[in-house]
């Protein structure tokens, strides 16, 4: 039996992040929650997840910078931006920085799961990380 897909949820709205993590766990995902960019980058470095669900506006390192650093160090880790601060400009910027997709809160759990599965599928075709298997 294969391992569960690993999803890292990064959002300073802890009630949102924890509840979403619990709902994904009920659907057989292995989840981890971080409340800021620093924690997210450390978690990715420590044990890269399959997918990061990332808020854009957070205290400290913002979501776009977190996205840029993740894609630079771990191109195979897919990032889905999920934010309440939706604008076309933010969406375009996120996609240019390498986000897999851009969603606006609130999002239906079924739609989010479809995106996560599609992101995992696409990471199989992403370039391999240097020095990593």
């Amino acid at each position, binding site marked *: 039996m294969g391992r569960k897909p690993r999803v890292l949820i990064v959002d300073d*709205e802890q*009630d949102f992040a924890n509840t979403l993590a*619990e709902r994904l766990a009920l659907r057989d995902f292995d989840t981890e929650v971080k409340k800021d960019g620093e924690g997210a980058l450390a978690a990715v470095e420590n044990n890269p997840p399959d997918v990061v669900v990332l808020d854009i506006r957070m205290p400290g390192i913002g979501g776009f910078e977190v996205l840029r650093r993740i894609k630079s160090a771990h191109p195979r880790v897919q990032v889905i931006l999920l934010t309440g601060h939706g604008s076309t400009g933010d969406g375009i910027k996120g996609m240019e920085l390498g986000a897999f997709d851009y969603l606006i*809160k609130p999002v239906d759990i079924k739609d989010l799961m479809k995106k996560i599965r599609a992101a995992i599928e696409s990471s199989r075709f992403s370039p391999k990380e240097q020095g990593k298997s």
Partner: protein
Amino acid sequence: MSYAVGDEIEFLARLTASMTHEIRNVFAIIQESSGLMGDLLDIPGEEGPKKERHKGILSKIQDQVNRGVGLVGQLNKLAHLADDPEKKVDLTDLLALMVAVSRRLAALREVELVLAPCPTQQVEVETSPFYVSMALHYCLETCLGILAPGARIKLGIWQDDKAVGFRINCEDMNRNQTDSNISTQAASTPQWAAVEKAMEKVNGSARLDNDSCIILEIGLP
């Protein structure tokens, strides 16, 4: 011609737009929390009327989240109308937004708002989204103020060779024959002055086309 809306409006619009983002976060938490309750109820175990009742309540919460998200989306779009003094405006989109935000007001007057079929090609014009939406809103207020319950307002895009704008047609079957026509009555209301003032700002005009029809004509650049 300057379409600038002024520092005060820009300030309010920016704060409003920012707050709509926060409200989305609130709805997201309510949605996920009620969703989790639904997930837990779906775990096989004790069945019964209580469980069904809880599911019914969760369904109502979800309906209201959807309603709230729709409203906050409209509020966000309204706030962003003040972002650019002048920009390319899709008139069909703007009309749909203004009809959506006026539906509640119309329902209170028991008047139906109907969007006429849109032109197949996009109708865009370089203008002030703020003042055009303001003219549309005051025009709807004007019509709602004089129409009787049961009436209908049909709104659509209007265009000819030289100009574009909106056609607002009032249909009032219960209207008394002795009343003056709708257009004439509309022109005598205080809101009509606001419609004309807003249309002047976009180098356009508001005119009465026939007994029951108003045309808002936007000046082309």
